């Protein structure tokens, strides 16, 4: 400033300033002054100096003069970068605003630059000049994250501490102000509300929080478990649902927990998954409770398949069969009953023949019995009422597998086959390379 205003100063800035004054007076001397600077190639410097001086000035009227002077000088420069000028204008505007007696922060330019804009905004926030802070942020082009959103967040927290307004209204007020801004953590505001003891406000605010992974933990902390569950389900993020379910499992009484699970299909299914991974007996209880007999039966079936010991298998199957009967699923009940009978037979066969039979299908059991030529096959056939056609297929396949082609031929020629002669050929042919020539024998039988 000194450089510019000092009497008799020879600095380019001073000359420019004078030039401007003359210009204002519409005097030709303006031109003279300009030429002086220009010839000395100091016009750029002059403009810069004026701008700097403007920045240093505290009095708006002088600021304006200096800026106009620099603007004047600018006209004569070809390639002047206006950004500097524009920035200075912006900054001055902001500084003038805060120097106003109502805010009363007499900052000099140097202090401002050291302090940075962000800190200034912080100071304004601390003093609760939220509106001004907002406008400055916007005006100075601070990014939303650093600027407006932060201000709004602080404003909201402040509002929360105020007792005057009722929870619901306040929530609405806050959300309407904040709805456009991004990156606001409603969770923080809600936490503040909780601290102030305003629970219902906190819950309402949390409704606005877009990030479910923030919402849910706070709700859990506040022990609002059913809310938390609802939000978790809405988010579609199963991890959150698991988290809430686990928490509910641990903190709620058994009965209440199970009732809560039944309220929501999704939660219930996930809980089922958890149980399936850990404890299937528990799974059975759950289904019993939910009166889902068929599903409970399914679990019994699965348990029976996994048990290595036949006694355990049979126990589960008994349960399953009874459940199916009660649920009027006669097909499943019959199949289960058949399996029980089959397992009994298979156990006996294992003991008798020393070969594994348990767990095989009915036809596979028959197949192996037929390969051995065991008479038990017929018994099994009649007990399970296996259709004749099927039985013949089984006989053909078994004889082929055992490579007892003579017997097979006898069977084929007996003309008692309910399935004709083609299967004889087909089975032998498909049995493998070594049997193709055998198949030729059967070709002659075909019509």
């Amino acid at each position, binding site marked *: 400033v000194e450089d510019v205003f000092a009497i008799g100063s020879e600095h380019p800035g001073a000359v420019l300033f004078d030039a401007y004054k003359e210009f204002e007076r519409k005097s030709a001397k303006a031109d003279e002054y300009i030429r002086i600077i220009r010839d000395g190639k100091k016009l750029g410097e002059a403009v810069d100096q004026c701008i700097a001086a403007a920045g240093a000035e505290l009095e708006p009227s002088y600021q304006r003069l200096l800026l106009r002077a620099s603007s004047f000088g600018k006209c004569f420069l070809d390639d002047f970068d206006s950004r500097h000028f524009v920035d200075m204008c912006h900054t001055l505007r902001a500084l003038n605003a805060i120097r106003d007696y109502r805010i009363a922060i007499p900052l000099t330019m140097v202090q401002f630059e050291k302090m940075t804009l962000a800190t200034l905004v912080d100071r304004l926030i601390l003093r609760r000049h939220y509106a001004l802070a907002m406008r400055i942020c916007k005006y100075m082009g601070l990014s*939303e994250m650093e600027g407006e959103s932060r201000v709004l967040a602080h404003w909201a927290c402040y509002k929360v501490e105020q007792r005057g307004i009722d929870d619901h209204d306040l929530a609405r007020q806050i959300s309407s102000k904040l709805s456009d801004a*991004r990156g606001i953590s409603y969770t923080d505001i809600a936490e503040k509300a909780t601290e102030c003891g305003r629970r219902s406000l906190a819950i309402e605010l949390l409704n606005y929080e*877009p*990030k*479910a992974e923030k919402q849910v933990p706070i709700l859990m902390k506040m022990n609002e478990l059913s809310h938390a569950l609802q939000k978790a389900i809405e*988010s*579609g*993020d*199963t*991890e959150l649902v*698991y*988290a809430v379910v*686990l928490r509910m499992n641990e903190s709620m009484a058994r009965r209440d927990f199970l009732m809560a699970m039944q309220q929501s*299909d*999704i939660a*219930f*299914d*996930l809980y*089922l*998954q*958890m149980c399936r*991974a850990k404890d299937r007996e528990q799974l059975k209880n759950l289904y019993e409770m939910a009166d889902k007999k068929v599903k409970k039966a*399914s679990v019994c*079936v*699965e348990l029976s*398949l996994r048990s290595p010991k036949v006694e355990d298998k049979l126990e589960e199957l008994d349960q399953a069969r009874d459940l199916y009967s009660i649920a009027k699923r006669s*097909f*499943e009940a019959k*199949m*289960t009953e*058949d*399996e029980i009978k*089959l397992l009994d037979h298979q156990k006996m066969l294992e003991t008798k023949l020393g070969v594994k039979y348990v*767990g*095989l*299908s*009915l*036809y*596979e059991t028959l197949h192996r019995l037929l390969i051995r030529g065991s008479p038990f096959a017929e018994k099994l056939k009649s007990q*399970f009422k*296996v259709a004749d056609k*099927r039985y013949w*297929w089984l006989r053909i*396949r078994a004889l082929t597998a055992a490579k007892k082609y003579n017997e097979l031929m006898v069977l084929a020629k007996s003309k008692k086959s309910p399935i004709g002669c083609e*299967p004889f050929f*087909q*089975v032998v042919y*498909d049995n493998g390379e070594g049997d193709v020539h055998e198949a030729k024998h059967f070709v002659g039988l075909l019509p």
Partner: protein
Amino acid sequence: LYSSRLQMAASHLSSGRIDVSRVRDAARRHFLELLDRCEGTKALVWDESMTGPFSFVADYSVLKERNVTKMTIIQHNTPPADNEQHVIFLTRPKLDVMERIADCIRKEERSAKGRDFSVIFVPRKTLMCDRKLEELGVKGSFANIFECPIDLYPVDSDVLSMELPLAFRECYLEGDFTSMYYVARSLILLQSLYGIIPKIFGKGECAKRVADIMMRLRKDLPKDVETVAPEFDSVVLLDRNVDLLSPLLTQLTYEGLLDELFGVENGRCKFSADKFSGQSEGGGGRVPQQQPENPTKTIMLNSSDDLYAEIRDLNFYAVGPLLNAKAKRIREAFEERHGAKTVGQIKQFVSKLSHIQGIRISLSTYTTVTALLKEKIENSEFIDRVSMEQDVFRAVDVDRIHPFVEQLMCMRAPLANVLRLICAQCTASNGFKQKVYDFYRKEIIQTYGYEHLRTLERLEEAGLYRLQGPKVYNTIRKTMRLTVEDVNEQVDRFLPSITHTMPN
């Protein structure tokens, strides 16, 4: 083919390719960043299901640069490392894998080699796994527990896969919609790389879920994404159960048949090496797999090979003649060397030579593959089955199938084939009459075992096997023009209804 739960299409893919390498680069960055946070020489121990997908992200040479000196699969008896200082497990969040990892760590700790352990969960660690590790008492042994949020793997220039083969089962049978969350996340990834997608179409319950989750997640994207000009102008979300018939039918395109008969996984197919004469193995060292007694040749199947790109979607029967024609042309081109007299001509020929050689090798490979495929399909079982499928989708004389299926079961055909045909028939006739329904059920259980009581229950839950509803298939077939009669080809074609549901 690929195990994506939903398919994605952008309506301008025909006019230009999206650069999917961006997806790969993003994935790679995540992964390598985590690797770098582990100190010392590293041994990577993989969950088997991840080795395939990760080959699209980073291959061995990249890993070597990051000080990875050994790679193995998580198994009970194999020690994970030799002298490496840091053992890193990489896995999906599966509970049974947690047990194997714990086993491994306990063994290592007993041998007291003073190693560090870390685990990387892809795409994220779940609460259940975390607890499991705690229960098993090994959670404290880890120096790091990382999450690597990779949802999409670039399989080819126009296919991104999530490699979640169990997604259908989880959603439809277990009520676990976690995979839908991952789908939404992957859409967000795409939008952060390629711009916000303005239009969203979809059909199906899962599609709706994904859309809802995605819209929620989208609010969190940084604002500058909105300024990026979108490269996709729409996304179409389709539930698998919009069209359950297509995956049940046997695929008859070249690549489809390869998948049916040999299995295409992660864009690769394995054959026994002795069928391929005198060709060098491509693709460098991956996780040690086969013992030397059964040498296998692995072929990469993607559009980088021009010849393959040409034949992969053709009906199989058209490929043979095409390969022959090409072979002839190559031979003619090669013979040109006799005609090259001047230096200029010779030069020209030589410059074409490497190109010709390249095609020759491709031709030789695919001719062998074609022959292998032919071997497998030229039997009555296959031919009859495909013919039955034709009956199914032509909605013609559906009663012929019943005795055929019965016979299949009498011959004890593989259960998968039987079930596919039955379910295809069921889907096309929108359910079975009580008699047929009961008959199949009983036969399946008695032939293949009691455990299939559960199998049938699950099929029913998934909507693939049920009692009759109104018969609509034929109407749909005609209005949507799902079948094409073609006199020249030996089989009628069934066009998946997905291609018809696309908006214009």
